[in-house]
């Protein structure tokens, strides 16, 4: 027998509702600012090339994580790449159901060893070539939300 079942008094129950005011603002950093500028003004992505091993990081870094070498060379890259892997999602972050599932993919950007996550419009397979669809230039903020989705090309 549970401990509460011995309690016979009739008491109105109460619940406490609360929303924590939790938010953050992330500053994109030295390399992130170059990425933001290229995306906003030219609609291009930015990679960072290590002078020592030649690896191209995307998103860009100011240091190579393998050589510990400082990176000063930034390359503008076309927002095209290859679908590395993808996943169908049925709920948003708060558990609300979508009308139809969304496809989220990791796209490896051509000319770099890195890539970006983004929504896919239209069906894709792993290995398909895709191109980023950007929001209008005047509405861009320089963050990854400027990329509306990726669409299959060719």
């Amino acid at each position: 027998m549970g401990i509460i079942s011995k309690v016979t008094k009739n008491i109105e129950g109460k619940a406490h509702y609360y929303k924590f005011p939790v938010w953050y603002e992330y500053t994109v950093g030295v390399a992130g600012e170059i990425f933001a500028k290229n995306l906003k003004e030219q609609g291009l992505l930015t990679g960072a090339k290590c002078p020592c091993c030649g690896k191209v990081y995307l998103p860009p870094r100011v240091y190579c994580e393998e050589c510990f070498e400082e990176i000063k060379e930034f390359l503008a890259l076309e927002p095209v790449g290859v679908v590395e892997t993808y996943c169908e999602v049925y709920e948003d972050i708060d558990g609300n159901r979508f009308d139809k599932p969304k496809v989220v993919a990791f796209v490896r950007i051509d000319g770099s060893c890195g890539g970006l996550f983004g929504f896919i419009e239209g069906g894709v397979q792993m290995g398909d070539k895709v191109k980023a669809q950007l929001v209008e230039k005047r509405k861009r903020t320089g963050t990854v939300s400027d990329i509306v989705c990726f669409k299959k090309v060719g």
Partner: protein
Amino acid sequence: MKPDNVRGKNLDKKGFEEATRVKYDLNAEYAYDMGYAVSRYLMGLKEGKIVGIKCHKCGRILVPPRAFCEQCYVPIDDFVELSARGRVNTFSISYVKWDASRIEKPEIPAVIELEGASPGVGILHVLGEVDPKDVHVGMEVEAVFKEEKDRKGEITDILYFRPVK
């Protein structure tokens, strides 16, 4: 300390405002079921009373009320009304709020042992109408309730405890 070869930079207020930023608002929402013992306590506060609970086995009077005595491990439901007066058991003078922002006028959270409750049993609240310099352990205090129409059955129905004049 920042090593010399690191190219990252500290941002002042202006630098922060000019920087590209990503803002995110987390949906950190919850509902907490109070259970019957704390529900009774909160309803008591709405009536302007502080309600405790008595263990029929060891006789201790506990506040805030709970569903069982943690020493005897028996279910309990003998609610008793306690006095709104008590003594400061311990306190702190805090110049930071819960979100770590600084405040000029300190808040004084304190544990108050209410008259009628067993020794060492106390509730956590804040002190008011008092100079922080005058606060001491053992100080006699009394609860100041909100006006009846404003009380909602929450712990904040007690505004604060103030020294007994």
